[in-house]
């Protein structure tokens, strides 16, 4: 990185050494015990993916150089098509708005990505580490769609919500970024402070189908 560029923005590794264990927003719920002691069979499975690296990228979709550079840095195509996503080895990119994408990587890789962008991304952009403020849940199973229908005012029919589609919307009384991973599998990116509420909600909404918690 050039000396002149160095002071433009603050890029810092926000994670401590491995000796200090991060605690996800659902850490206190002790989901490992819930998973071990709870039901092992049911129509809905909920899984928490703690400590995922998440970053918000803002840049100009009309700038071909930026788009090319960003795609190269991410290792997957940065799509401009609304409500889409792209995924590659250890990385997924979700379209959020015409100049915004939500990127997930392995928790430890966020700083590397920030550094790489800082060094090589041309033009006006912002790549902001938001991993501490969000967490990732996965809802799957035969009745996963039913639980989603209870929670979000979105049409989840496969014709209108195919695998790979991303929608950020009202989720119960909070919000979520929803990505369809398979016919019966959904990824939710939710805000840290709402994690307790949404967990309780999903647990309650799933109960009639039989709930399995997995770690």
């Amino acid at each position, binding site marked *: 990185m050039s000396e002149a560029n160095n002071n433009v923005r603050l890029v810092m590794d*926000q*994670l401590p050494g491995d*000796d200090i264990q991060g605690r996800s*927003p659902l850490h206190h719920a002790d989901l490992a015990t819930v998973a071990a002691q709870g039901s092992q069979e049911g129509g809905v499975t909920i899984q928490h993916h703690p400590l995922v690296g998440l970053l918000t990228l*803002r840049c100009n979709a009309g700038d071909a150089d930026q788009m090319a550079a960003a795609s190269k840095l991410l290792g997957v195509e940065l799509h401009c098509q609304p409500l889409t996503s792209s995924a590659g080895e250890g990385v997924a990119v979700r379209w959020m708005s015409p100049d915004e994408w939500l990127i997930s990587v392995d928790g430890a890789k966020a700083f590397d990505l920030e550094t790489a962008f800082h060094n090589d991304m041309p033009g006006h952009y912002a790549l902001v580490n938001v991993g501490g403020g969000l967490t990732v849940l996965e809802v799957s199973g035969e009745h996963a769609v039913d639980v989603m229908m209870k929670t979000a005012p979105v049409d989840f*029919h496969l014709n209108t919500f195919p695998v790979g589609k991303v929608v950020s919307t009202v989720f119960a009384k909070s919000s979520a970024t929803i990505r369809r991973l398979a016919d019966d599998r959904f990824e939710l990116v939710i805000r840290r402070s*709402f994690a307790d*509420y949404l967990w309780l909600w999903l647990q309650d909404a799933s109960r*009639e189908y039989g709930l399995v918690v997995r770690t």
Partner: protein
Amino acid sequence: MNQKNRLQSGGRIDRNQPMSFEFNGQLMVGYQGDTLASALLANGVDVVGRSFKYSRPRGIVTAGADEPNAVVQLGATEATQTPNVRATQQELFDGLVAGSTNGWPSVDNDFMGMVGKIGGSMMPPGFYYKTFMFPQSLWETYETFIRKAAGLGRSSKESDVDVYDRMNQFCDVLVVGAGPAGLCAALAAARGGARVILADEQSEFGGSLLDGKETISGKPADEWINKVVTELEKTEDVLLLPRSTVNGYHDQNFLTIHQRCSDHLSDRAPTNQPRHRMHRVRAKRVILATGAQERPLVFGNNDIPGCMTSTAVSTYINRYGVAPGENLVVMTTNDYGYQAAMDWHDAGRKVSCVVDTRETVTGYVVDAMHERGIRIMTGSAITEVHGSKRVKAVSIAPINEDGSKVVGPAAKWNVDTVASSGGWSPAVHLSCHTGSRPVWNDDIIGFVPGPTVQKQLTAGGINGCYELENVFKEGLGAGKQALKELGLEPTRLMTPKVESHERNPAMALFLVPHRKPMSRAPKQFVDYQNDVTAGGIELACREGFQSIEHVKRYTALGFGTDQGKLGNINGMAIAAQVQNKTLPETGTTVFRPNYTPITFGAIAGRDCGELFDPKRYTAMQPWHVANGALFEDVGQWKRPWYFPKPGESMQAALNRECKATRESVGILDASTLGKIDIQGKDAREFLGRVYTNAWAKLPVGKCRYGLMCGEDGMIFDDGVTSCLGENHFLMTTTTGGAARVLEWLEIYHQTEWPELEVYFNSVTDHWSTMTISGPNSRKLLAELTDADLSNDNFGFMDWKTANVAGVPARIFRISFTGELSYEINVQANYGLHVWEQLFAHGEKYNLTPYGTETMHILRAEKGFIIAGQDTDGAVHPHDLGMSWAVANSKPFSYIGKRGMAREDCVRPDRKQLVGLKTTDPNVVIPEGSQGVFDPKAPIPMPMVGHVTSSYWSENLGHSIAMGLVKGGLSKMGEKVYYPQADGSVIEAEICSPVFLDPKGERQNV
């Protein structure tokens, strides 16, 4: 009680599955497949309730959603009490407990019945308005008494034990009603590949076909129903919803369906299963196949138990195997009414005669009566019913051709059941919900759906189409039409073959004449549930009410839980007749959601109890809970309010927390503060435009406080923004203002200054923020970090990155207490770790956690404002004495600059924020108290502003307050008075709001 009215065979009930239930304390037995109503009739129960106003005994009139009388209270336990349940729609289950909702002390010995009987003509429409209003002071007494004696049930006094649910649905075609039209429409739509939802309020699909004896293509109708339903069940993207009432039709084809998932199973829903589910449907096309409801005729004492609609009689016989009496007389204006006589006769019971109001009748119905030896009396009507708790006899008299006059003497016939048919009223309710007015159709003598802006189709009875063959055709046609409009290809479908009959034209008759005028005749009930009579409607018209909407409100016509399903058309026709108008001239009232009463549970879904509203927590929440914090709601956040020790009062806890912070070190969880990451080469310029002060020269590594104003120059948020890099800033906002500020920045960026290169991102949840504050905060932090914390290298309003307790952190030396303070920010997954480490090292410094209340006191001691508490949207920076935070010399303007330069904003006597020192140092002025300059001024006293913040300051040993006072900044040392509700007056002196350390030495050490 034995089932004396149960037929030996027939019906869709299972006689091998008896079910016991309790009604008004009496144990009875019905069968699987019964409704509560059919089981009551089978057991010979005549009186199911008392009427609302006159307290007359009432029996079951219909077999469906239009039932006005059999509205019962359901529930075996207090927690499962449900009011407003129509016995005609409640499926019987073993152990069901129900009771009448009207009648006190009991339905058979009723208190209001006496009033009603004595009252009679003394209870005209508007009776309650007219009588019980005076003297006004007694109204509450009257009301308690009336409400106890009348009313339609009660809610549970305990929490509902059941779970309710909501679901969002999307479809191409929503078909409402699964009768012959609806089934055909759904089949056509499904075969064309559309996503279909078919909803019906009944337990089984089939609609009117379930009630009759029709054959389709030579086979019983239920074979055809089964075939269609089976095919629909197997078709992909078809959702079948029985026991689901489409209760509301809202704009943009949004409909709400109330599904009763387990009401038919037991008093309580099975474990983990919802009791009701509300489907919120977005449908591309809606096909209303809601059918029609039979109008009863209006005649004298037509409310005596035993009077029913003719279809109800047929339904109870054919569907439930119940003949609710021994000896029937039918009165009809049309051919359809004869069906009840045929069914009753075929069930082996006696039909005395069919009274037809028409002069002549020929054809099929006449043949059918001849075959059965049933007498037809044409040109006649039942003018009056005799009996009290059950029909004993009827008076039948000849009437003239248009049905306006009795033209001969009446003969008395002994019967116990009266079936009446005044023709059909299409169930247009849903089509009205979005504002479409129904249109009168003379041919069918009924209102049909009017023009609508919704994407809506109709089929069958709702259109006044009643011949089964045509109903099928309309259903298939609507399904195909929907497909066409959706760009889908319809497939060829055969119309089912049915027998059809040539019908005599029906007669338009709404009120059966009596030899006495309306006002003198025995009560001729129009609306059973509200005790509205023909005489009452006539009186309302005579008293000057002309508009049907006014007549409705004055008489309460159509006001009940049944929404006038039975009575509205008759009532309107009677109003028209009294006013010498036609029905189209009188018009109709319209219907609103919901079609039938709905439980609050279904509306609330699972948004109740713990899930009523989201509770937002910071990363340190588990520690707060473990350490006894009490919480305060700040927006949806739960913030620690204060941390009482066992047995400690709130004030004692606050005193302790305040002292500890000023004397050693306190800690606050400030994670809820809004945080916005701002990047771009124009970030600095942008800040200069949204804040009132200057940002051009803020160097990297420094922080600055800023005020944010609206266009009107009034403060709406404040906070500290730090320069992280040349083009990189971190803005903090108030906890409650976070979302609004981000929106504000985006709106200005996107609409006013899109040329500025800047991006905003919320990082509120990403960073955990903890503030350590007090003279020992440096010593404490030094134990956990390798950063140079000396005042020379890390001064007030500086920030640095450094490790704290092994975690990379951003440390901001900013202060909201006026003490030496460090605000430590770490990635939120490590917030609790750092917090715990601070406490691990903090004991020797008496590290004391404090909450929002102590934060408020400490900042008030320093005169720091809280946007939204000391400001109210009408306060600009100069009003706060904060002119130092306004830079008018910036090259580009800033939001609010013009606003605060307005004439009104530069008045010297504006309300300005000042400190208030009470003359009695121990008195804390209540926040919100209104100030006056002269406490002896005559009322209304000129008020000069209110107290915005007020506390006991343990550190200072006296109370402190801030308040807005007119011209306050130039009144230092003068007195202001705060009269209290108890008559006392608190005297205070206007002073600087900075009560402690006015030079700011403590935060600069």
